[in-house]
């Protein structure tokens, strides 16, 4: 039995703030300013930050959802969403059981994980050529 199958519901604590949210938003603004100025990419690892109950959800609400959202299936799903602040991406990687293994904000034009990787392109090309030789579509 994995963890998800255990019928335990976690009661959320009453919301309160420990002041992380404001500091984090200031950091995001600083990184975005740097990226806009000279293209320096930035990122913030959300897993390493202590959030009080409710603060994480407040951050999600504040950043909102922008125009682009991408779902990747690679050793479990990954969700990549541009926030309503273009250039600020929320990247969440899950394992096959649905647990978060990495959760970060990336300040960039497009997160690296979305791009096709050169090794995968080479392997795909090889596969395509082999299939063309074996079973040429008419």
């Amino acid at each position, binding site marked *: 039995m994995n*963890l998800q199958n255990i019928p335990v519901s*976690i009661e959320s*604590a*009453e919301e309160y703030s*420990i*002041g992380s949210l404001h500091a984090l938003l200031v950091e995001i603004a600083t990184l975005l300013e740097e990226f806009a100025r000279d293209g320096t*990419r*930035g*990122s*913030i*690892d959300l*897993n*390493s*930050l*202590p*959030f*009080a*109950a409710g603060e994480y959800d407040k951050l999600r609400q504040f950043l909102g959802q922008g125009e682009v959202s991408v779902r*990747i299936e*690679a*050793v*479990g799903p*990954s969700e990549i969403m541009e926030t309503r602040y273009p250039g600020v991406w929320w*990247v969440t*990687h899950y*394992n*096959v*059981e649905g*647990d*978060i*293994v*990495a*959760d*970060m904000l*990336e300040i960039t034009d497009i997160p*690296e*994980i979305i791009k*096709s*990787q*050169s*090794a*995968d392109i080479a*392997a795909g090309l090889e596969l395509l050529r082999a299939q063309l030789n074996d079973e040429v579509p008419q």
Partner: protein
Amino acid sequence: MNEHDTLGERLAQQGISRRSFLKFCAALASMMALPPGAASAIAETLIKTKRPSVIWLSFQECTGCTESLTRSDTPTLENMIFNMISLDYHHTLQAASGYGAEKSREDAMKEFYGKYLLLVDGSIPLKDGGIYSTIAGRTNLDLLQEVAKGAAAIVAVGTCASFGGIPEARPNPTGAVPVSDIIKDKPIINVSGCPPIPVVITGVLAHYLTFGELPALDDLGRPKSFYGQSIHDRCYRRPFYDQGKFAKTFDDEGARNGWCLFELGCKGPITHNACATTKWNGGTSFPIESGHGCLGCSEPHFWDGGSFYAPLSTPTSPLNLATDAVVAGAAIGAGITIANRMKKNAAKSEHQTATVADLEK
């Protein structure tokens, strides 16, 4: 046994895409407290790295450390870690047994002498010639000394291997000691915890493979990226400590409000580990989040550091007692034990439950 292939070759054989590996490296960067942007660089390095041979020796231990790693919440990603190494000997996990198992260890030691990583869980008994724990008829001490000679580095997994742990707790009947008390001429990294957080074990391996050296260590030989801050510093209840708001019992208003557990014996202020951010059980929570104070299991002698339910401010220093004080302490301890037993018996006769708080009055 042939020279091991690279991780890239291994992943390609298994049809794992580079994007999947990049994702894995993003998780690694996060667990190693590296900037998330380091994922690409880690991927580039690891993909070309030859998989090192790893020999895992289990001594006086409960197998909790192996359980922690193998029953981790991220099986697929952990499998990738196992792809990154060649686990050539682990007597709990390997299929071979008896002479076959010992031969695989000897073969790996010979083939990769000076290059293999040695992982150890459990402490090593020294009393009476070390007879209290043996493997294939050899004492743990003998085995450790032999295997350590050809190791590039040693990872002491868990508090027992790092600091002696529970086997070393008073009165330490087997004369248990940690790895670092025996091996003095090899780099040793202590990954303490009872058990250690699984991603810390894998993070240390990943760091070694990525950078070819051990990570920066604290004064107790633990990686700073995981043990650099105290549980207290990273605790979401820390603001209540600063405000002087404490739970006084486990079911009072303060406890229900999620106030600081310091007065209920939380050892968070003196305990260095990553539980508060990495958490347990698939990132669900860590002990303080479940309403119980930290036991301090990643610190030396945590088992002998006084009651788990006495505040740190309680003036107990059982570890530093002088000999005559120990004698006096033993007498007092015996007195307290008798008194506690009387309280417990009295409670039983009155059909009441004796609580921890009762025993500590």
